């Protein structure tokens, strides 16, 4: 099935369960709990998926570049941290957390290089928290998350070849085969 967030589309196999999580009417608690965009379960992995499109064709350019700047300087990390934790709590209450979920951030920004993705990933791992100091590792019996990964569209495709990602606008404007 095809997951859509604005101009970004990701194709998941039919065996996957894809839930659009941040719908206020279905969620019921968005006034006091933050929510990631999607919760996807496939092949035994649960992903809390957040998509940030900083190059939406219809958005005004200075708006998106201001947002991109906020992302690059780590100002969105607080928001992402709460989205992860609140989604975790909600899913725990639903008794739908069999394995620690993955937090996956897909950032559509062509200028973003792997070095920057790595830097963002490392910082997010520190705050979610995913990477833990020694004192905590001794006390915690189970992790909150299986991992935190940050992708752009190109690296997403490289590491998840089975989940095709594309821009809806690119598909619409290309000539028919």
């Amino acid at each position: 099935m095809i997951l859509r967030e604005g101009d970004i589309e990701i194709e998941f196999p039919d065996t996957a369960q894809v839930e659009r999580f941040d719908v206020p009417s279905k969620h019921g608690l968005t006034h006091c709990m933050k929510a990631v965009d999607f919760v996807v379960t496939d092949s035994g992995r649960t992903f809390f998926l957040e998509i940030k499109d900083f190059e939406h064709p219809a958005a005004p350019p200075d708006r998106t570049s201001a947002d991109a700047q906020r992302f690059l300087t780590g100002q969105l990390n607080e928001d992402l941290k709460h989205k992860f934790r609140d989604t975790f709590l909600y899913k725990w209450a639903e008794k739908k957390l069999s394995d620690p979920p993955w937090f996956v951030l897909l950032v559509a920004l062509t200028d973003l290089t792997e070095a920057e993705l790595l830097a963002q990933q490392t910082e997010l791992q520190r705050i979610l928290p995913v990477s833990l100091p020694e004192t905590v590792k001794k006390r915690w019996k189970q992790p909150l998350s299986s991992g935190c990964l940050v992708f752009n569209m190109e690296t997403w495709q490289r590491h998840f070849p089975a989940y095709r990602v594309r821009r809806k606008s690119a598909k619409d404007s290309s000539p028919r085969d």
Partner: protein
Amino acid sequence: MPVESVRLTNFTAFKKLEIEFSPGVNILIGENGTGKTHLLKVLYGACDVSQSTEGLAEKLVRLFLPSGNALGRLVRRQKGSATASLAVIRDGLTVRVSFSNHTKQASSAQTLGLRKWREKPVESVYIPVKEMLANAPQFRSLYALREVHFEAEYADILDRAFRPLLRGPVDPQRAELLERLRETFRGTVKTENEEFFLNSREGRIEFTLVAEGFRKLGLLWLLIQNGTLLDGSVLFWDEPEANLNPALYGPLVDILLQLHRLGVQVFLTTHDYVMLREFDLRQKDTDRILYLSLYRDPETDEIQHATSETLSELHPNVIQKTFGDIYDRVVQRALTGETFG
């Protein structure tokens, strides 16, 4: 009068190389052994002889130090006889030099165009990777007596550093640049009997005790203060980031861009991702930046080059690729392995 282009045939590692440069900032990347430093030295040698009475072939021997000062050893190594030829073009003028691999003396080389080349002298400075100011006392006299086996750029940089500071008011642009530099190493540089000192809040500290990164920035301050780096000069800097903490790369790039805007042509080599990215992020539309990549052709092993005005379009980019590899390994390790903590 900026350097416009270079043509090299059979010279050291190069079989055939022809590059057109930017009158602004030229940033060279490439794996070790792709000739970046040699290229910088050739260009610097050509610029330097425009202001001296030394021949270009002689200068090349002193810059490259082939064994026994045999010029012919700078010809690309191959079986049989071969000829190297070099041409540097600047402001419509070309200086050419050629020699065979049998050439023992620099004086036997064929040089063309040097007289006209000298009618338009250009000020140039080459900052070598190893900072020299700390080792300055008596170095130049030893070098002049041929008592030390150092390449010419080490003596040349000291000559530039020892020039007296310019007197009189400094124009506001240069003053601002000098101030920004001063903030990075927190002091001023003074010379006394061939010894360099950093005058800072902590007092008068001899260069031998100052961090190497700060010494390099101090050198840059001196070169701007004494008029070596002015509108029309050419700066060659091999790995400016060496011995500098990445926190200072941004301010350094800013200073290099300011120098460019003041009319200095810049050539630099770098191995560092942050340096490249800082240029990419700080350059303005009015700046003229050229990114150059030297690489070995996978089939012939010959050195080729690629250029781009934007960093993202530069291919191959070995620095970018290395980060790509690290990122891929980190993600793969997370997806396939233990990730608790």
